[in-house]
């Protein structure tokens, strides 16, 4: 961790001194993180890569302001998250911000089950999971991504999304429980379908 911070600091100093090769290395180091956030938050495939580019341009412009008060990855994820939120708001794509207040439960969402024959083409469990994740509210998808793909802590995720740590934990648990139940429900439904019961 210490070594990585030193590497990042050196890389950022090089970028600020005008070394373009260093910025290329920086992009290659963090493009996985940015693509995870963007691909999970933005439904339109055509816009994803452009948005990733915009995020790195923003990072480049704001790099002189970064004072190492947080981890570089946390800072980058925050910029990526905010950029995606702006994008979604601009396109009036619902964020489910008021999930808890309006009591839109995940159980209600699971009511839109896909017919078993639609699943027949996507027998791979990973594909099924991907489909189910895409049905979740954007905040749930983002938390799942940052926790499982980026190994971030509840605290870091809360810092990125400006949510209390307890809320992050609660959303994460609810999302995983919902996914487990929905996948299991699909599996059982499909089994019944194929056995003709």
């Amino acid at each position, binding site marked *: 961790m210490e070594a990585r911070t030193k590497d990042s600091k050196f890389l950022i100093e090089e970028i600020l001194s005008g070394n373009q090769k260093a910025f*290329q290395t920086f992009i290659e180091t963090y493009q996985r993180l940015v693509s995870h956030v963007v691909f999970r938050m933005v439904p339109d495939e055509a816009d994803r*890569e452009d948005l990733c580019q915009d995020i790195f341009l923003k990072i480049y412009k704001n790099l002189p302001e970064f004072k190492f008060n947080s981890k570089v990855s946390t800072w980058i994820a925050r910029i990526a998250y905010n950029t995606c939120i702006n994008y979604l708001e601009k396109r009036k794509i619902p964020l489910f911000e008021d999930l808890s207040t309006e009591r839109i439960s995940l159980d209600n969402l699971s009511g839109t089950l896909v017919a078993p024959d639609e699943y027949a083409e996507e027998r791979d*469990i*990973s594909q099924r999971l991907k489909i189910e994740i895409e049905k979740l509210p954007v905040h749930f998808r983002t938390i799942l991504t940052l926790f499982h793909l980026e190994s971030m802590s509840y605290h870091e995720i809360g810092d990125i999304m400006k949510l209390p740590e307890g809320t992050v934990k609660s959303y994460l648990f609810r999302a*995983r429980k919902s996914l487990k139940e929905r996948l*299991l429900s699909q599996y059982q439904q499909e089994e019944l379908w194929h056995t003709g019961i």
Partner: protein
Amino acid sequence: MAHRHLTDDEIQSFLDGNLSQADIVGHLQTCEYCQYQLKQYQQLYIELAHDKGFNLSTDFARRVISRLQTEPSRSLMQRLWDVSIWVVGLLAGVVTSFYFIDLKLVSKEISEALSSLGTLNSAMLSVFKTFDKSLNLNIPQLAIAGFVLMLILAIDHFILHRIRNLRSSFS
């Protein structure tokens, strides 16, 4: 815990490393139902950690760099725009000052004050009195000038700034 099944939250806390093994292992050894639940969550965790389908183009970094190289021309245009706004503002300020202040009277009074310079205090006092006398104050005109200035600031802050930010974010 030995007499009831583990909740979903407890299983997830255990897998996240927030519950100690001692709290849970004893129960899991004797409860097949909870073992099954744990296995399901373990499978889910494995699948969630796979990052398939997040691939950017192979030359992604190069594309960002090439966009970066086209940015200066845009920022140069922005800077020119900013400078022109400043120049217009400055000229408007100077013209307004000339309109409201009788410059001949000011220069005359200042030169008189400086020539009969007795003490520094009396000279400064004289200069301030001169400004007071030479101000050709017209309250309605001042109000209109203030309103126009506020309008320009509001347009710059609420419209032009936002357009520039949007351009830099999404172009």
